[in-house]
């Protein structure tokens, strides 16, 4: 009977492990950022034409480090990016005086026409540029798009969100980023 109990015990253990796997769904989602609470790297990037009047052709995050920042990574082929774009624009219009929004097109190299169409479709008014060689993406520890980094005024990472952001999350995080 001990042997039968061993068989049942092992089956139950393996069964619950795999059941956990099935309930959890696909692996490798929402891997926590290792940079949480740490200072994010600085970067510069070329901006799309429509933002150059306000921010110059080359955007340096260092020039804006007095404010908290919401840094959003997107790509023109990324479907959830289209869901979150209006939410980002809305939050920027409401809180642009307290928080800087930055959009970075990444994993989508040299696709300017598509990028411009994306920006025009949602009439995004916060500065957007492109990261053709994924250098900024790697320095931020990006896994995929969309990802949004909420950065305190001191340059440390308060929160990293994977997947499309919602208006509620943006409101909550912007409130939290205030000193």
């Amino acid at each position, binding site marked *: 009977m001990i042997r039968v109990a061993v068989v049942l015990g092992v089956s139950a253990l393996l069964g619950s492990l795999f059941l956990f796997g099935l309930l959890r769904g696909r692996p490798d989602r929402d891997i926590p950022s290792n940079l949480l609470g740490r200072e994010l790297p600085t970067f510069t990037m070329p901006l799309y034409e429509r933002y150059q009047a306000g921010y110059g052709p080359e955007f340096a995050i260092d020039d804006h480090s007095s404010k908290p920042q919401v840094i959003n990574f997107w790509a023109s082929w990324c479907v959830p990016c289209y869901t979150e774009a209006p939410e980002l624009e809305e939050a920027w219009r409401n809180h642009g005086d307290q928080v800087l929004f930055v959009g970075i097109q990444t994993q989508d190299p040299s696709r300017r026409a598509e990028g411009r169409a994306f920006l025009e479709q949602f009439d995004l008014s916060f500065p957007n540029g492109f990261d053709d060689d*994924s250098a900024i993406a790697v320095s931020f520890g990006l896994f995929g798009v969309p990802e949004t980094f909420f950065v305190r005024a001191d340059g440390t990472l308060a929160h990293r969100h994977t997947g499309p952001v919602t208006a509620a999350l943006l409101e909550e995080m912007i409130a939290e980023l205030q000193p």
Partner: protein
Amino acid sequence: MVRLAAPAVVIALLIGLLAALAAAQEGVPLELETQVFEIGRKLRCPACTAESVADSNAQIAIRMRQEIQELLAEGRTETEIIAHFQNIYGDFVLLEPPKRGLLLWVWLLPLAVAALGVGLLVLYLRRWTRAASAPIEASEAELARVREALSDELPPGGTT
């Protein structure tokens, strides 16, 4: 659903797509040495499912290979380069699990099971060899008969 009239249209579109992707490669360092790939094989591509930085052609993997090449050129060692990416991405990018915390068990358990297997093997072999060498009860008359039979049949010098 619309059926595209001529396959030629599709082909033209595809060529366009391929060329666009090709044009994207400017500014990527074009020469990479063997060691870049050796280090890349120890790092997981963050944007892929289960591929290493050496094997993937995702943008992030291409960029990481470039960074490895640059860091090597600066004279950094393999350990330092791997630590650099671990610092950004965490333990998740390490294809070789670090020997600490819960991951220590993935290294210890196979050792433990192999040792247990060898232990059980020794234990059972001891028991079984003892069983085999246990004396067999036989009367003197039977033994004599066996001896006689053996001396008749055994060819000289036969083994096994």
